[in-house]
């Protein structure tokens, strides 16, 4: 058995988890947690570039919390320049 085949047989490890507790957003309503994480992610990649690994934490948070149609609306607003917050780092 070759090394390649052995790697294929091993199951890929996937971690399924939602975002953890954040003391800034202690309420059941996590709308602002979603919004702030979206802002933080875009500030992060604007400062450090898309490949900067620590930014992933923010994108995991907002993708876990924000409904998909909110994310697409935020993206549209960002492109149109009407997103209601500064994304400058």
């Amino acid at each position, binding site marked *: 058995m070759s090394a390649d085949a052995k790697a294929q047989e091993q199951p890929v490890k996937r971690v399924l988890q939602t975002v953890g507790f954040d003391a800034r957003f202690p309420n059941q309503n996590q*709308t*602002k947690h*979603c*919004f702030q994480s979206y802002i933080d992610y875009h500030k992060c990649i604007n400062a450090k570039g898309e490949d900067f690994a620590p930014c992933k934490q923010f994108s995991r948070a907002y993708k876990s919390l924000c409904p998909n149609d909110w994310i697409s609306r935020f993206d549209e607003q960002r492109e149109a320049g009407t997103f*209601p*917050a500064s994304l400058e780092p």
Partner: protein
Amino acid sequence: MINFNNQIASQRGKFQAFPFHLVEQSPWPLATSFTLLTMALGAVAYFQGFPFGGELLLLGFVLTASVMILWFKDIVIERTYLGDHTSQVQSGISLGFILFVLSEVMAFLSVFWAFFHSSLAPTIEIGGTWPPVGIESVDAFAIPLLNTILLLSSGAFVTWGHHALIKGDRFGAIVGTFITIILALIFTGLQAFEYMEAPFSFADSVFGTVFYASTGLHGLHVIVGTIFLTVAFIRIVQYHYTDSHHAGFESAILYWHFVDVVWIFLYIFVYVWAS
């Protein structure tokens, strides 16, 4: 004529065994309901963009104002020339007016509720901040501060007018009330100027909506209070009031102080705190 009417009032107990005013048949209650219906339908037609909606609204407003003038004219005649307003009737009218002002307090409470609902926890759609992202609020320490001073001093002048009337000082009653009305008119003019110069409109987010809804409702009350005080002023000049019988003037004063207090809250929260 005045002496003759005072005689009717003083002799009243000899031909009426009770102090109450039994009103006679009047067309104004029914007429008012029709004009109010016209105004409400006109408002709906106007807001929904129906043809001639605005004209119907204007017609309803003019008719309602006309019927109010005619109705109040009857009341003034009943009080001043027929002597129907005994002290019992006066206390009934005063209590009724206090309850009316209480209902106005509740109306303003609901507008303030809307304001605090929107501003204390601003939604993400407006950037989670108050004023919302991109909204430039008016400077609280410019014209609004001047308006606060104007309204507070108008409250002082109306007190002068009131106490002068009680003391039988005709000059003080006339001048005090007149200056109150002038200050009220300046306030309304400055608010109109502020509205024209404001960098945001009624349609600019919940901020614009709640700002113009609250200050606009207050502005309408200032206009009504000014008319109320003007009617009282004319009646002082016309010798309608005595030093102890001037419930209409006192109701106008109560209304004016109410409008004043609402402005203090508006100034503190909508102008100073929220900008």
